């Protein structure tokens, strides 16, 4: 036979490690703390299971003859005078004078009276006569219940008048002791028998014992040890009637026990307490396995719903691009005339008045960020919808709210931090000023145009004659003549007309260039936005995949936890 104490110790140690390190889904931190403390207490209790003495508690309702039973049991061994309780709530402790009180008995916490005796044959047993369980109330009741914890064996005394008392069975149900460490005494059985008609007595006894057994079975006690006893009958007599099992009971209770048996009795009680402790784990385990099944199903369904979720975000983004001021901001921000030459720049100055910002790095960030935050909150909204649909489904399937809340908070935490970061990163990569292309050809076209216009002005100013001279004899003198003629005629009415047309043409051309420039910028901005929204859709797809992965990972971690709980107690 394996050592029961050693096995329990191993179980408890495993449980404590699990409480410390394992991941709990349903237990609150304070419950975990309590679990850990209780396990520690039980471990301490296990270590003290080396004493070779037993603490026996006698419990019963009022008027079941508990005191007379005590006296009858003790016989001549213990002082036979009836010990009066100074207080109905006190515990009477009968102790052999050489056996000390168990060290772990919290004698300070309840009222008690000690009776020492010199019957060495029952030195192993410490009998505690507990107050009537139905007469104690409030604080004393708590004390008695707390005292039960220190008992190894429990004797429940009842009588033919009281055996059906529901209060008794309720009380019994709350006692954490191994069921095999209960003894039941049906006292006052003499009430059933009279001298002439033993027949009816046995009939009655058979009936009572079978219904008592039935009641006990209802509170989880199978095959109870019931003794039919008449303490009264024994007083003064040595022989007693056949149905009186007092001596059998006395022998059973007082017999000398091997240390091994004592250990087994105590270990069985602690085992029962550990059972109660482990039932918490079992509750967790049951919750987790249901949870796991649901998450598994949700993960599978989610995979199929991905396309739908992608569509919803696509639509949301389309709506956003139509309404967001981002495009306008981007256009006006990039309209700084960097590729414009000449009079076209004047039109940019008009635009500049609208947006007074300098297009440097920080200003770009501050004008783009609000828009990016909009996108982030759009994503958040979609993730919330997903989370809500998952949470709603879990709740409908009867998953307990703390588990659902836990899942939800994990999703939320992830969504707020991570999503915004990746969206901002993508936005900055697209819209930052640094990577603007320089359009050299466009600049060249402008230069050439303005040059041509200027040439045209000079030619028209110099007039036909000067031009012809220059053409007939090209040389420095004819060229100078040409230029001087042009300067002269600039102040003539014809020249003024030419200058006026020149200005008008310049303004016209400049405006055309400006318009073209705007178009180029708008096109570029649209291209940027398109590629940005494409990136967003990729991000969203990745996010959906990530959600699916998280669900799968959750199933995996639940599996691990379930295994750990299963291994706790073999």
């Amino acid at each position, binding site marked *: 036979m394996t050592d029961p104490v050693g096995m329990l110790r191993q179980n408890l140690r495993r449980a404590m490690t699990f409480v410390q390190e394992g991941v709990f889904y349903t237990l609150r931190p304070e419950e975990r703390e309590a679990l850990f403390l209780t396990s520690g207490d039980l471990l301490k209790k296990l270590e003290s299971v080396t004493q070779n003495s037993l603490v026996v508690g006698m419990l019963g309702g009022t008027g079941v003859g508990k005191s007379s039973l005590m006296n009858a049991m003790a016989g001549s061994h213990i002082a036979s005078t009836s010990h009066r309780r100074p207080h109905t709530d006190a515990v009477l402790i009968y102790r052999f004078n050489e056996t000390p009180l168990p060290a772990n008995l919290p004698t300070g916490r309840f009222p008690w009276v000690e009776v020492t005796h010199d019957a060495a044959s029952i030195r192993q047993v410490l009998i505690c006569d507990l107050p009537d369980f139905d007469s104690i109330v409030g604080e004393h009741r708590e004390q008695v219940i707390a005292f039960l914890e220190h008992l190894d064996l429990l004797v429940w005394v009842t009588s033919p008048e009281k055996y059906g008392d529901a209060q008794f069975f309720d009380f019994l149900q709350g006692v954490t002791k191994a069921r095999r460490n209960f003894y039941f005494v049906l006292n006052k059985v003499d009430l059933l028998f009279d001298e002439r008609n*033993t027949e009816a007595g*046995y009939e009655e*006894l058979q009936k009572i*014992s079978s219904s008592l057994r039935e009641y006990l079975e209802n509170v989880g006690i199978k*095959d109870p040890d*019931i003794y039919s006893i008449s303490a009264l009958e024994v007083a003064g007599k040595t022989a007693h009637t*056949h149905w009186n*099992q007092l001596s*059998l009971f006395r022998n059973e209770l007082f017999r000398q026990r091997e240390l091994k048996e004592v250990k087994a009795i105590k270990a069985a009680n602690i085992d029962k307490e550990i059972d109660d402790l482990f039932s918490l784990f079992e509750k967790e385990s049951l919750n987790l396995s249901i949870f796991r099944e649901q998450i598994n199903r949700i993960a599978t369904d989610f995979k199929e719903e991905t396309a739908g979720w992608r569509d919803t975000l696509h639509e949301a983004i389309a709506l956003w691009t139509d309404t967001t001021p981002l495009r306008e901001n981007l256009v006006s921000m990039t309209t700084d005339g960097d590729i414009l030459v000449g009079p076209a720049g004047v039109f940019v100055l008009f635009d500049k008045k609208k947006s007074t910002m300098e297009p440097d790095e920080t200003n770009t960030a501050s004008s783009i960020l609000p828009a990016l935050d909009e996108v982030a909150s759009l994503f958040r909204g979609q993730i919330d919808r997903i989370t809500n649909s998952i949470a709603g489904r879990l709740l409908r399937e009867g998953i307990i709210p703390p588990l659902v809340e836990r899942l939800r908070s994990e999703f939320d935490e992830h969504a707020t931090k991570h999503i915004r970061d990746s969206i901002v990163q993508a936005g900055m990569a697209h819209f930052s000023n640094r990577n603007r292309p320089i359009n050299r050809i466009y600049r060249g076209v402008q230069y050439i145009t303005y040059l041509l216009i200027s040439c045209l002005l000079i030619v028209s100013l110099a007039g036909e004659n000067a031009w012809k001279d220059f053409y007939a004899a090209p040389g420095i003198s004819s060229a100078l003549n040409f230029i001087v003629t042009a300067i002269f005629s600039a102040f003539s009415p014809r020249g003024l007309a030419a200058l006026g047309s020149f200005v008008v043409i310049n303004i016209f051309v400049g405006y055309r260039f400006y318009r073209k420039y705007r178009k180029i910028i708008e096109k570029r901005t649209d291209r940027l936005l398109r590629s940005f929204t494409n990136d967003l859709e990729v991000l969203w797809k990745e996010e959906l995949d990530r959600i699916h992965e998280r669900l799968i990972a959750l199933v995996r971690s639940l599996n691990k936890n379930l295994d750990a709980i299963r291994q706790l107690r073999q």
Partner: protein
Amino acid sequence: MSVTAKDMIEKIKGRLDATDGASEKINAVFQFILNGNGGGEWWFDLTKKSPETGEGLHADAACTIKMDAGDFVAMLSKDASPMKLFMSGKLKIDGDISTAMKLQNFF
């Protein structure tokens, strides 16, 4: 288990035969219905001068004792107390219980 319920029935029969006036003292028919492994039905007729025993059910049984064959063997080997079996519902007596108690002297 080496000892069977049938062996025990034989043992009781032997004791009843060996006791003078056993029938007069008790004067009743007992029926045993033993369930489980090695079980069966036996009766003792103690209304006649010399006690009779047989297998099966007796029509005029004053007292029927129902129990598990294993418990029966344990009871007769003094490993289990009849009163304990009675209180735990493992020994059921229909009919005249106090007469059944008289039979105990021959166990």
